[in-house]
């Protein structure tokens, strides 16, 4: 099979995983199942990144989203007593308006995206993307060092904040 076809097939499978997982997340009655669907969706995105020649990001996605965030959510669900057994509706009363709005939004977005003439780079450039991880590191510690540091502070604050919020209070 030509590369192109392989790519399309892979893309289709990944899309199925991602969007299907997403739909499962938002629609499953059991929250635990929803979390597992979330993992599926994240895995699809990992594939996307590989397909887009962003290997490092794929690894990061795998480690952080699946390895950390999804697991965290699973733990939270399992630790929250009585959440898993809830069998009643997981949708609130405005779900149908939400559905309508979301569908319309998707349609509008699709139209808008179609209409825009994206400034895609030249074929030559497309053929040789810069993929070196070392370069990424230099970018992060070079021009983007301040956002980088801010992000680290953010993480620290989030860490402390989460601990304080989740702490058992005596009173």
């Amino acid at each position, binding site marked *: 099979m030509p590369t192109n076809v392989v790519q399309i097939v892979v893309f289709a499978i990944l899309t199925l995983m991602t969007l299907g997982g997403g739909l499962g997340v938002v629609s499953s009655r059991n929250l635990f199942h929803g979390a597992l669907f979330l993992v599926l969706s994240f895995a699809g995105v990992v594939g996307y990144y590989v397909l887009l020649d962003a290997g490092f990001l794929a690894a990061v996605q795998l480690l952080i989203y699946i390895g950390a965030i999804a697991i965290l959510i699973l733990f939270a669900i399992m630790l929250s007593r009585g959440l898993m057994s809830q069998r009643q509706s997981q949708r609130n009363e405005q779900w149908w*308006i939400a559905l309508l*709005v979301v569908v319309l*939004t998707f349609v509008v977005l699709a139209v808008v995206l179609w209409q825009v003439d994206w400034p895609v780079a030249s074929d030559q450039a497309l053929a040789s993307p810069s993929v070196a991880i070392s370069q990424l590191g230099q970018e992060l510690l070079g021009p983007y060092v301040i956002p980088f540091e801010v992000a680290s502070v953010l993480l620290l604050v989030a860490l402390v904040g989460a601990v304080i919020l989740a702490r058992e209070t005596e009173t």
Partner: protein
Amino acid sequence: MEFFFNLVPLIPLIPLLAFAAIVLFTHRNNRLSSNIAIGGIALSTLVSWGVVLATILAGEHVQVEGWELPIPWLPTGTTVFNTGFAVDGFTAAMLFMVPFVCTMIFIYSQGYMNLGQPNQDPRYARFFAYISLFAAGMLGLVVADNLLLLFISWEVMGLCSYLLIGFWSFRDRDNEQHIDEAQVKRARAAALKAFITTRVGDVLLFSGLALLFSYTGTLTFREIFRPDMLEHLGSISLLGMPAVTVIALLAFGGAVGKSAQFPLHVWLPDAMEGPTPVSALIHAATMVAAGVYLVARMLPLFVAGFETANAPALQWVAVIGAITAFFGATIGLAQDDIKRVLAYSTISQLGYMMMGLGLGSLVAGIFHLLTHAFFKALLFLGSGSVIHGMEHGHHAAGAHGQTSQHDDGFSANDMKTMGGLRHKMPRTFWPYMAGTLALVGIVPFAGFWSKDEILAEAFQRWQESGALGLPFWVWLAGTLGALITALYMGRQIALVFWGEPRHEAATHAHESPNSMTGPLMVLAVFALIGGLANAPFLGSPLHHFMGGVHEASEVVHSATVSFNFAVAGLSTVVALLGLLGGWAIYRNYRAGEVEPFQRWLGPIFTLLRNKYYVDELYQLVIIRPVVWLADQVFNFDNRWVVDPLVNLVGAVGRAAADISLLFDKVAVDSGLVEGTAKAFNAFGGWLRQTQTGRVQNYLLVVAVTVLMLLGLYLYL
């Protein structure tokens, strides 16, 4: 000997340091404090006398031209104001007298102030601190080379005067019962009166000083008295007079206050509320002399632009002096308080000094100032000794149980309770007699020479003018004053030292300690021989020593007056007559009798006893109206006009707000506004329900809005 001039700043500084040392460090130790004070003034005396000696030896270039030490002090605009010290013959003459008399008084005080008090009394150290500060002020005044430093010292003395007159003006009722309540009240009133009264004069002097400063840009005596400066001052017209005359009169106003001249003399008799050494120190020998010193120092300003004989400022000095000399003496006739008699005597004698200066004779006025300082200090200290003896007698009588103590209205100052003390207090009596003879003017005591020089001056001026003008009246007032002076002194010594004791206290009175009588004897010597300083038969040495200090101004001339046997003879006769007359009349006065003068003079005596009702007049004309005015102004401010206006503005604002509110309620609110409001309220109540508190509702709204915007973007 020139070396001594460099020590001049120390003369006022040493007592000042003594003051500071006592206040800050040694005030808990009475003995040490008094020793510091005495040591300070003694040291100052030594330096002063060194300076005097140096001046004598240096000859005319110092005696007349003076020695100066300028110190840059105050930047004023584009110029710098100098202060500093100066010594000339005049200053040296004062420097001979002032610290020495002060020393005598300090030593005396050490004995006097111990009277019946426990050694820990904090007032003891306080007293020595005050008198040290006082001495610093007086000495600073004498050595000042400019009017400002003089004024500063002058005011420092005023302050000390206030503090010392008010020395008994407070007490702790539970712990200080030896001070009686009436005394506290009197002292309090007297202190305030002294300060405020002299302050009136001071403000005049201050104005004169500021004016002088404005016109000349300097206050240094030497600069002011330059002929061109005087001419410049004379050429400016102010209030219809030459400015120089205005300034001179203003300065004289200061002197009137300080030297207790009519009409600002009222404070001095009351000032006798202070401890007796203070009366001697401040209100006899030195401080009141400051006014005379000022006039003498400023004499060129008084004369500038006129002949000496008809300079208006000078004439004022002579007139006020004559009035004060005469009337002061008359009041002295009718007083019972031994110190008050002396106080009026002081006023009267200061009048003599002013007379002398008013006649344009620097030396005559200052000569009398110097001799008077010695014998009046002597008299006051002597009277203090008498009072001291009387109080001891009173205590002794109380101890013997012979009188009902404390409630018989006994006053140790009242001459009518005394009598026959010459036997009980001989070491007080003899110096006191020397002082009396000097004051009355009996040959060869000091007062004779100095008073005579003034009268001779007036007499000669009268002879020169040949008409019954001012000099005649001055002479007449002086001669009559001398008669009355002799009369009241005769009365006093007769009441105090002759006759029989008229009270238990006088019976038991005894001599004062040596620390008190010692200074009396020393001063008595000066009362006896002090007149030699300018005796005509010695060639008027004082005249040569200091007469020329104002020569440089080219307006004041020193001319000696030849000794006039007629004048001297007349005044001696008058003095003897008065003294013997007074003595004879009162020698046998007995307790409880109506006194002879009162019998003879009737209502006039009452008038004199009440000091011509001047105090009452001031109370009525000045003090009450000012206090009343203050109250009214306050009411104007707080109750009637200013503050109520302010509050009114506030109230009007509030009222306006209230009215608007009312209008709103009636017209606008209930109709238009309220309807609208209700509508909005209903709408709001409906709209409020969108605030469900649910995040997802809000987010949905956001999403819908974004969608609508996107749609708009797409199709418009």
